């Protein structure tokens, strides 16, 4: 059970890191200022999650 949980946790962090990367990429690529601000706000919890802080 512990092993399964650990594997899921690792996969979850990889997914979080991927989403954070996609958001960063979208911030750079977007032509819309409002979207850029929105992506920045969404990015915050993903970064904290990847850093294992919250």
């Amino acid at each position, binding site marked *: *059970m*512990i092993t399964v*949980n650990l594997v*899921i*946790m690792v996969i*979850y962090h990889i997914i979080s890191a991927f989403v954070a990367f996609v958001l960063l990429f979208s*911030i*750079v690529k977007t*032509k819309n*200022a409002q979207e*850029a*601000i929105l992506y*920045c*706000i969404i*990015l*915050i919890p993903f*970064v*904290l999650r990847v*850093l*294992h*802080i*919250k």
Partner: protein
Amino acid sequence: MSNKFLKNVKIIALGITIIVIFLAGKAFYEHRYFKGAVVLGPGVTEVKTLGDYFSPLKGSINDCNIYILDSGNPGGTIIVIGGTHPEEPGANLTAQLLVENAQVEKGRLIIAIWANRSASTVSRPGDAYPQFYHIPTDWGTKKFRMGDRWANPLDSWPDPEVYINYPSKQMLAYMDIRNLNRTWPGRIDGTLVERTCYAFMELIKKERVGLFIDLHEAELEYPVISTIVAHQKAQEIAAMSSMILTAMEFDRPIGMEFSPPALHGLSHREVGDHSDALSLLFEAPEPFLDRVRGITDENLLLTGKDPFVMKAGKYGLLYEKIDERGWPIEVRVGRHTSTILQVIQTYSEIYPDKAVFLSQVPRYAEVIQNGVGHYFYNPAEAPTDRVVYE
């Protein structure tokens, strides 16, 4: 929209994002890695950790300190645990007060201040919980970490769809797999909190604990409040203690309730069922936990005064009385210390061969008069080998 404007917006937004991440991350990090000092009182003869009783827990977040106060004189062994739910500060403050003050004249006393330490490393920002609270002492202010009811998801995740308690197979809410008072008697290969309970059961068996006491606080909307919940093996002790305390000491009564035989996972049921120890659980009122509360801050946590909870009481919606006096932390801790002393005295009278005699533990009236902080000592003035951190 010009490219230059767009670029500036992006740079400013990213800059603000980095600042917010830094500030939020710093606050969360400081809370999670906060170390609270515990000054070992003259009664403490040894400090072990929970991992000493179950090695897979060694070095984990829940490898909490186990304080042993051994009189050297033959007698019984009693364990008191605080911090099962770290959002109930009266419990861990009482446990720490015992560590810093109690002296044992006969038998042994074992104490855990933070039974579920992982749960003390997470709070509920969405419910406006403060991260820390501060207790005034004779030498300054002592800072304590405010926690939650459940272990930190950073330490135990994911939760199941439905939590099935082991070995009873009773179905419970999913998040209660992280609730130390739903996972007894624990599981050797379970999740963090199940293993923590398993380690405590190993401790109880290896140290031949005769009486187990689990300290709690409860919202006034909850029917199990101001009471001693007793396993059937401990009903005499609980009944006698509640009568004596209500008649002789407390201005607001303390009751006694039986541990429901079919309600599994709770310490008062499983410790009694799965070991030789008699198990009891104490509940003191904590208005901070009530859902109808108003401003949720450190003041409410420590004074227990809230006009909304009082109003709910006027409409008969509560199971405990509340007035303008509130339920200050001194009253809650004082009720716990007196209940512990009374229960131990009654236990020692009923089982003289397992008697435990304590001294230097303040009773209800003394804690109210002097304040909780009076019983905490300055770690800066204590010998370094008599200070440990949780």
